[in-house]
């Protein structure tokens, strides 16, 4: 076993609460595929039977393939788990997240549905009433809105309307966010709409290891879970320890320790925050990076601990800032950590405009520099 593999094992063994470990994990996730192929041969070899159940090991996977692996595990563990979506069968989805699953599980468990999002969610509700655990793929973030009615007026309320006698173990996977240079309705960040809706749970992994475990935890949940997949992070690879589960689904996590300013985000924004922290470190400033992981409910414990220590908080997100997850985090931290704050909580968001033509996305989406500009303002108080 080479040194790199040992390091990865150390990282994943120390997953629980280890900021240093996660930072290394993120660093590893930046490794190019070529690097991974050349350095991880032993790791892959040692985990060679990893497609078989129960074999512990660390694999280097992209976030997309980590979700594939998580879906496979969940489908093997429970034959009531079935996948529904558009083009998810032989094609494996437009992002290939379900690649190979129809071949393995058949077309009764991996359903290429008609192209109708409301129909997909509405029929999934009926299937869940029948005892199934549907996992839906919405093809792109901007295409979830035809299903908005079924999700908010129906799915979110089935349990309360049945006085608890029915649960709704449905996962809705949503590839979301920008940085992929795509056309209109393909780069949206609509998570706040769903976090605003009682009865739903909303999560977003930022790295392959979390993605592998969180998708399985989401499927195991008896409540509906909106699972937002940061599609700009689909391809970078990172270690996935299939033997050691991560945190509970709704736990947030400090992924890099620091002392001067806390920066918090979710999904793809976590990578931006880590880049900002690297740049800040070169300038002698120490940023603590918190990965929310869960957007509803939000686990404020680690975030408040961090703010108590640093006294300053920047909330960053790809979504529009107005009435956003970041607004909620800022308000809650102001309520609960008022005497610890040395500066107002500042938000770094995309602008409150429709997502612009992709040629402008680098100026539209928050960058490490935009985060650092806010850091400067916070430190000026």
């Amino acid at each position, binding site marked *: 076993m080479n040194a790199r593999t040992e390091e990865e094992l150390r990282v994943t063994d120390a997953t629980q609460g280890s900021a240093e470990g996660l930072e290394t994990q993120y660093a590893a996730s930046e490794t190019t595929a070529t690097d991974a192929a050349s350095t991880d041969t032993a790791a892959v070899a040692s985990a060679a039977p990893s497609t078989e159940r129960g074999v512990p090991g660390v694999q280097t996977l992209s976030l997309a393939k980590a979700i594939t692996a998580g879906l496979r595990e969940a489908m093997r563990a429970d034959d009531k788990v079935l996948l529904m979506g558009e083009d998810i069968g032989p094609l494996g989805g437009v992002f290939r997240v379900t690649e190979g699953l129809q071949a393995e599980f058949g077309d009764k468990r991996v359903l290429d549905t008609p192209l109708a999002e409301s129909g997909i969610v509405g029929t999934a509700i009926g*299937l869940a009433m029948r005892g*199934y655990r549907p996992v839906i793929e919405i093809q792109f973030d901007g295409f979830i809105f035809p299903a908005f*009615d079924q999700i908010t007026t129906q799915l979110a309320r089935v349990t309360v*309307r*049945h006085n608890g006698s029915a649960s709704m173990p449905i996962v809705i996977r949503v590839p979301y966010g920008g940085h992929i240079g795509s056309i209109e309705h393909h780069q949206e960040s609509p998570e706040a709409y769903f976090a605003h809706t*009682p009865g739903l749970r909303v999560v977003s992994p930022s790295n392959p290891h979390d993605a592998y475990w969180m998708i399985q935890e989401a499927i195991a949940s008896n409540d509906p879970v909106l699972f937002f997949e940061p599609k700009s992070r689909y391809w970078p690879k990172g270690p996935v320890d299939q033997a050691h589960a991560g945190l509970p689904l709704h736990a947030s996590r400090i992924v890099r320790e620091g002392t001067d300013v806390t920066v918090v985000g979710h999904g793809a924004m976590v990578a931006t925050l880590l880049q900002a922290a690297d740049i800040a470190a070169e300038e002698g400033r120490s940023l603590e990076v918190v990965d929310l992981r869960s957007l509803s409910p939000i686990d404020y414990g680690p975030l408040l601990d961090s703010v108590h220590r640093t006294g300053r908080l920047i909330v960053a997100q790809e979504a529009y800032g107005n009435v956003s997850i970041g607004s909620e985090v800022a308000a809650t931290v102001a309520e609960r950590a008022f005497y610890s704050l040395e500066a107002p909580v500042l938000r770094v968001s995309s602008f409150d405009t429709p997502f612009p033509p992709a040629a402008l996305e680098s100026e539209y989406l928050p960058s490490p520099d935009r985060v650092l500009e806010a850091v400067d303002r916070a430190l000026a108080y």
Partner: protein
Amino acid sequence: MSARERDFTAPTVQLLTPDGELRPTPEAEAYLPLVEALDDTMLERFYRDMAISRRIDIAGANLQRQGQLALWVPSHGQEAAQVGSAHAARPQDHLFPSYREHIVGIIRGLDPVNILALLRGATLGGWNPAENGNFHLYTLVLASQTLHATGYAMGLQFDGATATGDPETDAAVLVYYGDGASSQGDASEALVFAASYQTPQVFFIQNNQWAISVPVSRQSRSPLSLRGGGFGMPGVRIDGNDVLVSYAVTRQSLEEARAGEGPSLIEAETYRMGAHTTADDPTKYRTDDEVEYWARRDPITRYRTWLEGRGASAAFFDDVDTEAADVAADLRRRALDLVAPTREVIFKHVYSEPHPLMTEQSAWLEAYESSFEGGSSA
């Protein structure tokens, strides 16, 4: 080039004329054996259930006028469509109502006080379909339930709970919606999914001619039954005020569904004699002549005429009237006895699993309220 055909019509299948004669239309002949197979008990049950439905309708409207219900949803005039179709279902079938099918729920074993509790603002529904004849909850967003029903029917298929060849155990799904709801996208998507997966399912449209104040002609330029063919399933238009044809056509459609022959659609032409809900004033949008036309086609009167012709006794009708009055009075009494839910209900079942906001907010509300109840008056 000649003008394209723009005439869309469909025959109305009818067994019982408005005058109460059993005189099948040509398309109805095939359904006659299903009616002939019914014994007197079942035929009398149809009458009894229609009579109970009408008495409950009066009781519900009165409760609303007296301020005891937030709303009442009348079904006067639609008794035959509802009673006939409900009796066509087998015990293992699943029924997905809209929000007007009170007697369907009762036939399936639901205590109608559950419906009054919903309309009184005491619950959001709350009954467990598995314990109430597989009668699912009312759905107030139009046509949402058509997709739930279709998904449920897909589940029956995946489970192998249908199309095994045993009609005693093979299950099917019956879903109700209206002429207004037929315009919703979900109604069309449900037809797409049902046809695509060949679900064991019957779509039952009660075309009561009015969606609150808008006539069916605004929803559709052609009979709604024709929508079946457009999606690749049989569609049939029936006289929805004829309980026998409602029973027979639904029975046949459900049997085909459970036998694996796929979904179908029924449009039952009927009429909402009362308001859409008690919040509405139908005199503002429809004529007395129209109401009078439909009154002459009353489903209960015509069926009673037919039963009398078959020899049903005056005592039978008297007994039914007494029973219906008793059922309605008992329901009224129990509606008035309904107690308001306690405040923990706000939070209790929002999630199946523990949720920090529910815990925090219910604790806060409890502390807030008890700060008054137990606090000093000083």
